[in-house]
């Protein structure tokens, strides 16, 4: 099929192309209250094809591109006719495609995923035998175990293959005491079974579920708020957005190379942020990306100073910079200059927001508190409801990092980060 696609691409007059053959297999198991609710097997195979068309006219030189998806046995010529029309209409600035380069060795597939149904059964056993505890039982669980094999072939001579796996466990616990009941939901996505730490996570969420039975709504005030590691990628998403060469090209990025990312006098810890495509079993690790750029690791922010835009080949060419690929796993390295956590004796620890999605352009955020604690001296009071709001860019100069480092799939860094002077809305 690949040879046929290449032959027909040439016959339709396209000089450049990228073809990815994507084959996926997934086993899904759904549990409700200790029994199976459903079981699914999914298989798919398709080719993702992007063709490029150079155009010259009185208006200048342009490059057009068109992407389509085709399955084995389909009429490739019909797709290529549409592609010729589409690519011929698009008038983009020319850029080059990635060429062959050595690829790193990065572990992306836990070999145990090759026997997914058996592994799903093992996980289901673990869940059913550990989920029930003091005043807590299992509501439901969903297990997704998938493998994907991707082969990339480009007109610039790249021929490469990679395999990756994905393990997802979505779990809800119910707690009850007298006429009160509550739920605690969590979702774990990893590439390696050992990184799930399933039993440890169930134990920890059982405790949260019990504490959920005695939550109160916080009070309206300005306060220090601790963000757990599972929320930090989302919290820092505006940093990823403004680090993008595409956003720089559009004139929207706040960041300038060599300039501080903080504004105002520094009151907290400085920090270093890296984008890494090579963390073993990192969710966003990649031997090579969709355009054939090898997995890499780069310092994006170093001690509060912006160092490098993350650029696909297209925007690297436009801005005359290194093609790094887009932002991958986030590594945060604090330079601990200020007070450790235990010196703060009145703060909110948010275990889970309902949906933390900061505005990528402005950095403004506001999100409901799904569950957390108010720490006040020796007291630890469970809270739920109300919201926390602030602006991540304003907070960059006033953050405190925990000393404990954790790996959360696509994040490697402090277990929690405290932002001071955030608005807490409650009663």
């Amino acid at each position: 099929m690949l040879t046929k696609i290449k032959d027909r691409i040439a016959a339709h007059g396209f000089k450049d192309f990228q073809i990815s053959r994507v084959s996926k297999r997934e086993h899904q198991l759904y549990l409700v209250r200790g029994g199976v609710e459903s079981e699914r097997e999914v298989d798919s195979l398709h080719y993702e094809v992007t063709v490029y068309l150079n155009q010259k006219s009185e208006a200048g030189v342009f490059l057009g591109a068109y992407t389509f998806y085709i399955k084995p046995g389909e009429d490739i010529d019909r797709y290529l006719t549409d592609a010729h029309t589409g690519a011929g209409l698009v008038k983009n600035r020319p850029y080059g495609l990635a060429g062959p380069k050595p690829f790193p060795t990065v572990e992306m597939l836990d070999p145990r995923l090759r026997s997914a149904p058996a592994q799903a059964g093992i996980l289901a056993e673990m869940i059913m035998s550990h989920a029930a505890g003091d005043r807590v039982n299992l509501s439901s669980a969903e297990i997704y175990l998938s493998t994907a094999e991707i082969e990339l072939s480009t007109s610039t001579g790249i021929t490469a293959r990679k395999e990756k796996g994905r393990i997802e466990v979505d779990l809800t616990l119910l707690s009850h005491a007298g006429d009160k009941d509550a739920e605690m939901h969590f979702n774990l996505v990893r590439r390696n079974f050992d990184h799930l730490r399933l039993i440890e996570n169930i134990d920890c969420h059982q405790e949260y579920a019990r504490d959920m039975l005695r939550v109160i709504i916080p009070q309206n005030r300005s306060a220090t708020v601790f963000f757990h590691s599972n929320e930090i990628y989302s919290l820092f998403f505006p940093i990823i957005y403004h680090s993008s060469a595409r956003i720089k090209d559009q004139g929207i990025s706040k960041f300038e190379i060599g300039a501080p990312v903080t504004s105002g006098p520094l009151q907290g810890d400085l920090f270093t942020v890296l984008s890494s495509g090579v963390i073993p079993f990192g969710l966003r690790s990649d031997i090579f990306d969709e355009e054939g750029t090898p997995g890499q690791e780069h310092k994006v922010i170093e001690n509060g100073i912006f160092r490098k835009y993350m650029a696909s080949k297209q925007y690297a060419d436009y801005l005359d910079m290194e093609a790094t690929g887009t932002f991958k796993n986030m590594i945060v390295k604090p330079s601990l200059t200020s007070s450790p956590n235990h010196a703060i004796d009145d703060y909110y620890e948010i275990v889970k927001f309902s949906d933390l999605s900061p505005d990528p352009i402005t950095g403004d955020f506001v999100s409901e508190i799904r569950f957390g604690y108010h720490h006040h001296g020796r007291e630890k009071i469970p809270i739920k409801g109300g919201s926390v709001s602030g602006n991540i860019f304003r907070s960059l100069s006033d953050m405190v990092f925990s000393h404990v480092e954790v790996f959360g799939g696509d994040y490697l860094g402090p277990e929690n980060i405290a932002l001071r002077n955030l608005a807490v809305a409650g009663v």
Partner: protein
Amino acid sequence: MDKKFVGRIRELIAEAERKVPYASATCFAGDGMEIRIDRKDEKIAALKSNRGLVLTIFNGEYFQEFATDDEDPDRIARFFRSATDSVKRRPPKFEIPAGAAQETSHRTGERINPDAMSVTEKLDLMRDRRDRILKAGQVVNAMVIYAERMENKTFINRVRVVEEQVRRISHFLIAFVTDGKTVKSNFLTAGGTGGLERIEVRDEKIDEMIDIARKLLDAERIAPNFYDVVAAPPVTGLIAHEAFGHGVEIDMYLKGRARSREFLGAQIAAPIVNIVDDPSVPDAYGSYFIDDEGEPARPTYIIKDGRYVQGIGDLYSSIVTGLPKTANGRRESFERKIYSRMSNTFIQPRDLTPLEIIAAVENGVYLEQGLSGMEDPKGWGIQIIVHYGREIRNGKLTDRIFSPLGLTGYVPELLQNISMIGNDFELDGGTCGKGHKEYVPVSSGGPHIRTRVRLG
């Protein structure tokens, strides 16, 4: 769908049902394209297709599904036999009703056929809209997106062959403005099921969107507190969707995850409130003719005169809970499971004009543009992120603008606090997840409403 292929699938289902209590097949097909342009770049691409077949088998206790995107008839026959042989057969706990015999075919109507307009003409239309935004003062970038997708679905079981062709059109316009120090954005959406008439956007609407983007440069953060609010239709829709849409998906009852089960038949909202889920609304983005279990689309009254009357359900959850099956069994794609899902969810309009509602508020906030929401069916909490709101003083809108706002609260309190409902009606299209996954096209909306909520 090809009659010969349908006939072959029916034979394979009959063959499977000699070994298992129930089998059905759902075939998904369709194509689509997207145009995405901004100040500097343009992109035209085919949309990733949802083409595949799901074989659903009841093993006596639960559903086992086998999904493939292979379309070769011989391999599909082998796939059916191998799947049926691999099923873990159990003594039947209950029966799966095959439904009434039906052979129907439906197709979305359209006033302006998208196929009659060339890609060049569509691209030119998008470029015109982008250029209109870029010509305005303080604009640093404009993004315009157009997407069309024809979704074909055929559900087949031993007595039923029902198929639909639904065309969904979506259109986004975003303006990025600056005052030299900061960048803010505002957006406009259009779309629905049907033809290009769904993306007719008046120039004045685009200019108004840019004007508000400029005003957002001076927006304030609101002091956290409880406020009297008037919600415009996009925010009314998010309230209906998050508060009492997700909360009554009856697959959550199986899991013990929805508080609403305890309130079936009870007065839960102010008596003026009616909330409906209706996949048969003409032209709406979340509309369809049959759900993914072959159930014909029809409206479900969720709240009638403030009383919770019925949830929305898929086949398995309905059988196990004993509650009625509604036309709400939906899946993201052939690769995903069926859940109880919303379609078009809205509060029904009543008799007041929006101006009458605003005039009745002495001090409050007009919540104009929603962004997103998140459900909490067990805790019965609600989170809605509102893009911006305007101050109301003495029954009039002032120039003061707040952005962004987080609306949170306790669902029954919020619904009981609804004191006025407008006579206008709008539906906003988008996608909805079950938690943070399983995205399906939906719409939500209603009229202007007045209520009292916590803002932060």
